């Protein structure tokens, strides 16, 4: 035996460990793969052994091999084995391997659930830590669901090391199991204020990550983060928060205003560049979101730009890069402030770092003006010449074109210059952007009529020197330029100086080496040119010249007829036949020129790119209908000629479904339209384009530009754009001089004494008049054009599932799955409850919130709170811990609620949802319980508390008043809440506090005998229009133990008690708890109702067993459940404008009621209506208020309450008169009772 062990360990001595493996691989450089495969064989042997140490060693080696790219998923089960070892060393190896190679589809993962759970609850914090770390890498939806609760428990672990890991991993859990977000969120929020900075940082991290994807749900946390930002010293946390604010500000401009100051302070004070940079970034985001109305706006911009300048000037390339990056963000909104740093940015163009140069280029785009365009482009052209890498040069090229062509060539004053620039760019070798240059040439030539003469001359030169371009054309795209050149020369051939020469150039044999589509254009335009030549020559008496031209065509064209390209061939043979025929006619001395040029007659006009869209669909034409049944495969698509000036979308070659849905069709149509719109050769027969025709100034209106002949027009291979810079300068000077003269004149005439007007300053943009008129079509949009759809989110984005409203209280169903054995016995907890109530009479006071403004919400919460109170007492121990945190948290919550108010989220379900939460927490550690705890507490007088003494109430009131005062003070300090608006008229359910309200309760007595008292409250269920929830509080009045309570109701046709599936229609429902003496507890029952317009009564019975020490008796209690119409109403907030619209709509029937002898303050009256009848105040002005509510079936109920003296008149409108009548009756009754 001993021998065997010794042998085993000696065996192991010669097993390779990781170091041996690495060394071995290094020693077998030449046959690495072979060596590794033998190693893998060894590892397989090792994994077969029972010894866990051997296995762990093998797994460790596998991890290394995985890094080298070997698939090790076959060992997944062994990895799980090693993970489950009790030794930390092995466990760690196992988890490491798992985190490297497990993923969602690894099937053994499901075996790990229990092991991981065990490790999570291990007494050794490092076991837990290792498990958490591993889990963070391979968590699956199943694991997330099963372990969410365990991890959430760990968030409150005593060791910060575990806490921070647990907090961090929650993000991964949320991603995989979005349902866990809401239950876990309160605790996560709590961790923002954890005493340990690491945990705090982790919580900030997670919330920032969540908020980045769905910022609007986290707006309510802004005050808390604001506090953290001003208090935290951890740069990492600060950076995260500041980044988060950058994401939040676009949603809440008021937040931005608050941020400017602290951020500015940070910018001034911090020494950490990373923090400074993020601050600047966020300030920029704030400034972008604030479109106007900032007094010190420019100061902040100035500060940012100034700080960025420091960054850019820094020798550290990283800072330089980031500075430029941030600068480009400012540029979008405040171009002026960036423009003053042009020198710096131009300097960056010379930087040795390509990334920096590219960033600087981005910036240049926004910095050009009419004034400096030429200068900047000149600089760029120099860079183009110097640039070594083609990618950078291509980038420069596209940037030059972008800069020049931006917003309809807005900044170009001299198009001759621009054409020269384009021509110069064609000399770039090896650029991929030939087509870009070509499209620019075409665009300019077509749209700027005045430039055509010049453009044609330049293009003719280009064609003449085509050999320069085509030298190595096979591999570069520059020959695309010839496409444009040929087309321009053909189309505008009347401007050619020497058309014959150009024609000759176009028919050179060398042309046949060009790509097919270019040849085709050559052939076609040769024909156009030919027509022009004929026309010119026919005027002359000498007919031989014309015949010579025809002969040349006939000689040269056969070359193209033989072309392999179908398009070229077809066009060439057509034209060849035509020319032959013309020649015949010429020989007969027939005048043909007129007719030939008629072939190409017609002016080409620019059309708005979106004009096509505006074509109205003729009546009776269904564009979506198939003309022929669609073929099953799109075979013809591939045959389409390549579009040159539009980027072709990748085509699907796989068979498409025959039924293409509407959307897809629309999209395709759109794409097609786009393509056509972009195609200059596509003839658009649209009314708007006709309009364009009319509007487009005729040729005669265009000022003829005098071309300065000092400019060498035809020097091939020489850059000439520089000349224009000089010329332009002169031109401007001249203009300026003229202007000055004029102004002087004016001044003389006016003889104004003001010497303020000095003209010496830099000339402004408007002063520069363009040398050419650009025939630019304003981009018209069809009247019913929709704003372009926002970038639709990827439906597969995991973050989409996390778009969850976190402000809504938790519902019953929203609990993390807990293992079943945890459920604690109900009677025990209720017994504790009783004790707790006696033991901590002070506690509710501590909790009492100072916030009473928000009456509506408060009232909703009332009931829930009373229930929570009980539960709270149950968790006395937890309570104390949380109290500390709660105390701090209170204030931000107040603020956040005020923020919420602005959003006016429907909170109507809160009461009943919360009730569920309270009830659903019988187990002391149930997480959902703590979830609700973080809400501010307000003890309200309900039946449960009736026992509490009266002076306590007084104390409470006092306390409340004090807090009220405090709060008012706070208002001045903390201006996070809505600072504008709504002071004179109170909106959205808020009732101004004038004097404390008497406590109210909606619970009414249901039945009572010597053993038990039942009170109930009935609430509609917003989610389901046919459900009402009846909450019944059972109170044991006797000295005996009450058990086996069964609740039964005699169903009516209209209302039925919802019973669990499988039970009969007359079976009772078991009340899920027992009642020790003197204890009360609440149960909820759901009823389905059909019609809600009438109140209704249901008879019911409660049966229970009274158990004494010696005997037990069976007792019963009859009751009548009264479903009032009020109970079908749900408090729904309503904006005053929506309210007005509702009243105007005229669908509502009106009715009114008068109440006499009501002597209570108006706000009490309103509060009562709100509370007892589930209304919310829409608007209140003096002694008049409008109120709103909605039934569970969506009926609108609007009230106008007026008071004068003791008379209250209520005018009401509702779309269901019966319901309205009943509600009004009930309101009347409420006030007659008091």
């Amino acid at each position, binding site marked *: 035996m*001993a021998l065997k062990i*010794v*042998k085993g*360990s*000696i065996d*192991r*001595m010669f097993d390779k*460990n*990781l*170091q041996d493996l690495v*060394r071995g691989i*290094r020693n077998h450089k030449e046959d690495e793969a072979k060596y590794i495969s033998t190693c893998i064989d060894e590892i397989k042997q090792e994994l077969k052994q029972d010894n866990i140490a051997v296995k762990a060693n093998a797994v*460790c080696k596998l*991890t290394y091999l995985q*890094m080298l*790219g070997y*698939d090790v998923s076959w060992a997944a089960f062994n990895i799980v084995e090693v993970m489950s070892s009790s*030794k*930390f*060393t092995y466990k*760690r*190896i196992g988890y*490491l391997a798992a985190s*490297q190679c497990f*993923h*969602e589809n690894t099937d053994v993962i499901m075996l790990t659930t229990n092991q991981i759970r065990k490790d999570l609850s291990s007494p050794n914090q*490092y076991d837990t830590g290792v498990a*958490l*770390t591993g889990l*963070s*890498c391979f968590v699956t939806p199943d694991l997330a669901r099963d372990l969410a609760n365990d991890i959430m428990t760990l968030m409150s672990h005593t060791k910060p*090391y575990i806490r*921070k*890991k647990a907090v*961090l*991993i929650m*993000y*991964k859990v949320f991603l995989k199991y979005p349902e866990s977000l809401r239950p876990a969120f309160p605790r996560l929020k709590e961790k923002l204020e954890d005493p340990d*900075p*690491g945990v705090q*940082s*982790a919580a900030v*991290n997670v919330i*920032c*990550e969540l908020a980045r994807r769905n910022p609007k749900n986290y707006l309510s946390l802004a005050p808390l983060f604001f506090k953290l930002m001003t208090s935290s010293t951890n*740069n*990492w946390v600060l950076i995260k928060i500041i*980044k988060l604010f950058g994401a939040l500000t676009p949603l809440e401009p008021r937040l931005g205003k608050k941020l400017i100051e602290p951020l500015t302070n940070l910018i001034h004070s911090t020494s*950490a*560049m*990373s923090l400074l*940079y993020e601050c600047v970034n966020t300030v920029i985001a704030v400034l972008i979101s604030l479109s106007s109305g900032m007094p010190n706006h420019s100061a902040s911009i100035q500060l940012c730009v100034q700080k960025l300048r420091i960054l850019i000037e820094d020798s550290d*390339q*990283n800072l330089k*890069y*980031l500075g430029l990056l941030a600068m480009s963000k400012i540029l979008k909104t405040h171009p002026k402030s960036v423009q003053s740093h042009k020198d710096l940015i131009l300097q960056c163009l010379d930087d*040795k*770092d*390509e*990334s920096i140069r590219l960033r600087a280029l981005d910036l240049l785009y926004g910095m050009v003006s009419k004034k400096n365009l030429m200068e900047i482009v000149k600089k760029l052209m120099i860079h183009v010449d110097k640039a070594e890498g083609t990618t950078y040069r291509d980038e420069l090229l596209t940037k030059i074109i972008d800069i020049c062509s931006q917003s309809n060539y807005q900044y170009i004053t001299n198009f001759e210059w621009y054409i020269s620039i384009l021509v110069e760019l064609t000399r770039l070798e090896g650029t991929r952007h030939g087509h870009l240059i070509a499209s620019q040439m075409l665009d300019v030539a077509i749209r700027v009529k005045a430039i055509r003469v010049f453009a044609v001359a330049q293009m003719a030169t280009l064609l003449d020197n085509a050999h320069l371009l085509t030298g190595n054309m096979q591999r570069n795209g520059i020959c695309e330029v010839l496409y444009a050149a040929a087309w321009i020369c053909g189309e505008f051939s009347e401007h050619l100086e020497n058309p014959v020469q150009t024609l000759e150039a176009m028919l050179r044999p060398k042309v046949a080496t060009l790509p097919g589509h270019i040849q085709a254009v050559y052939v076609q335009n040769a024909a156009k040119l030919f027509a022009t030549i004929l026309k010119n020559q026919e005027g002359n008496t000498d007919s031989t010249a014309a015949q010579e031209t025809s002969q040349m065509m006939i000689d040269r064209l056969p070359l193209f007829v033989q072309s392999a390209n179908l398009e070229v061939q077809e066009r060439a043979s057509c034209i060849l036949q035509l020319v032959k025929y013309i020649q015949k006619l010429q020989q007969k001395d027939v005048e043909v020129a007129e007719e030939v040029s008629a072939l190409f007659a017609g002016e080409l006009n620019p059309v708005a790119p979106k004009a096509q869209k505006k074509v109205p669909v003729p009546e009776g034409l269904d564009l979506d209908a198939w003309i022929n049944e669609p073929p099953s495969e799109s075979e013809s698509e591939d045959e389409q000629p390549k579009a040159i000036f539009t980027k072709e979308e990748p085509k699907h070659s796989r068979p498409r479904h025959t039924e293409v849905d509407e959307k897809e069709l629309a999209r395709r149509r759109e794409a097609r339209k786009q393509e056509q719109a972009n195609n200059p050769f596509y003839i658009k027969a649209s009314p708007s384009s006709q309009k364009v025709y009319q509007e487009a100034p005729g040729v005669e209106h265009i000022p003829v530009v005098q071309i300065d002949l000092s400019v060498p027009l035809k020097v091939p291979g020489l850059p000439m754009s520089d000349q224009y810079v000089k010329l332009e300068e002169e031109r401007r000077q001249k203009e300026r001089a003229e202007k000055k003269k004029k102004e002087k004149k004016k001044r003389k005439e006016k003889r104004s004494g003001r010497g303020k007007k000095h003209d010496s300053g830099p000339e402004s943009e408007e002063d520069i008049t363009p040398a050419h008129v650009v025939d630019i079509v304003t981009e018209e949009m069809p009247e019913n054009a929709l704003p372009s759809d926002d970038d639709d989110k990827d439906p597969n984005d995991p973050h989409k599932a996390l778009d969850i409203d976190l402000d809504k209280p938790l519902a019953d169903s929203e609990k993390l799955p807990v293992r079943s054995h945890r459920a604690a016995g109900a009677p025990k907890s209720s017994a504790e409850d009783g004790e707790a109530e006696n033991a901590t009479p002070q506690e509710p006071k501590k909790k009492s919130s100072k916030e009473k403004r928000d009456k509506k919400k408060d009232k909703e919460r009332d009931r829930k709170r009373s229930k929570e109170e009980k539960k709270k007492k149950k968790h006395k121990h937890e309570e104390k811990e949380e109290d500390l945190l709660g105390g701090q948290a209170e204030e931000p919550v107040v603020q956040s609620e005020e923020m919420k108010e602005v959003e006016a989220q429907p909170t109507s379900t809160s009461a009943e949802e919360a009730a569920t939460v309270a009830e659903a927490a019988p187990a002391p550690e149930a997480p959902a319980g703590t979830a609700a705890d973080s809400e501010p507490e307000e003890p309200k007088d309900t039946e449960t508390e009736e026992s509490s003494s009266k002076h306590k109430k007084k104390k409470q009131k006092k306390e409340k008043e004090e807090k009220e005062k405090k709060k008012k003070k706070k208002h001045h300090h903390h201006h996070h809440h809505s600072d504008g608006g709504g002071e004179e008229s109170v909106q959205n359910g808020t009732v101004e506090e004038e004097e404390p309200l008497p406590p109210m309760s909606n619970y009414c007595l249901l039945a009572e005998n010597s053993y038990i008292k039942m009170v109930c409250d009935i609430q509609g269920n917003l989610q389901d229009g046919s459900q009402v929830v009846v909450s019944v509080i059972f109170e044991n009045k006797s000295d005996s133990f009450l058990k086996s309570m069964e609740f039964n109701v005699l169903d009516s046709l209209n209302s039925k008690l919802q019973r669990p599936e499988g039970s009969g229609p007359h079976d009772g429902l078991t009340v899920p708890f027992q009642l020790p003496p003197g204890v009360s507890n609440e149960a909820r029952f759901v009823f389905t109702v059909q019609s809600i317009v009438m109140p209704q009564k249901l008879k019911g019975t409660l049966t229970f067993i009274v158990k004494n020490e010696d005997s037990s008796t069976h007792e019963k209690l009859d009751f009548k459940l009264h479903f009032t119409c009020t109970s079908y109403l749900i408090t729904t907030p309503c904006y005053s404008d929506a309210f007005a619209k509702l009243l105007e709509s005229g669908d509502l029937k009106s009715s009114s009621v008068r109440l006499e002898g009501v002597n209570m303050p108006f706000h009490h009256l309103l509060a009562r209506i709100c509370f007892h009848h589930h209304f919310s105040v829409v608007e209140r002005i003096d002694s008049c208020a409008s109120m709103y509510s909605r039934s569970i079936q969506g009926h609108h109920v609007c009230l106008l309450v007026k008071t004068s003296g003791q008379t209250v008149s209520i005018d009401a409108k509702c779309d269901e008169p019966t319901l309205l009548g009943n509600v009004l009756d009930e309101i009347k009754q409420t006030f007659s009772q008091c």
Partner: protein
Amino acid sequence: MIKAILIFNNHGKPRLIRFYQYFAEDMQQQIIRETFHLVSKRDDNVCNFLEGGSLIGGSDYKLIYRHYATLYFVFCVDSSESELGILDLIQVSCSFVFVETLDKCFENVCELDLIFHMDKVHYILQEVVMGGMVLETNMNEIVAQVEVQNRMEKSEGGLSAAPARAVSAVKNMNLPEIPRNINIGDINIKVPSLSPF
């Protein structure tokens, strides 16, 4: 979020890879190659940010890297991370850490350390970044946690307990070639003499 952490040497050989999003092994290798290709052609005196490669992430992602002697440390991060923060995280300058941690824990980190102790480096890394999120930036804290865990491992006898360590010391003497086929039979013969112990 950090999407991946890659460490490779001047020749593109991976020394540590840590993906926080699943990629198949061949894809991982391709990403490493692409990243190496992008990073290696950059001079040392240019900025340390690169708009991400096409394989990971896309436009929202950036590569942030540092070049140390023979090693490249590359973090692939999205826009929620601060560029300079991550850079600091990689480097020494602030109290932020990563290489610093390696420095401390391995006395002077060099490529060989990483090659032979990939697992250790992983363990350190796990204390800094967890599941793609920065867990801890306080160097002292990181070092402390790593050390405690190493002590635990030692007390458990490590991966290859005492006898093996002795052997491994022998092996580390860098004999040109350890006889590969040591026959257990030979040892068997000697074993009886051990039995009296």
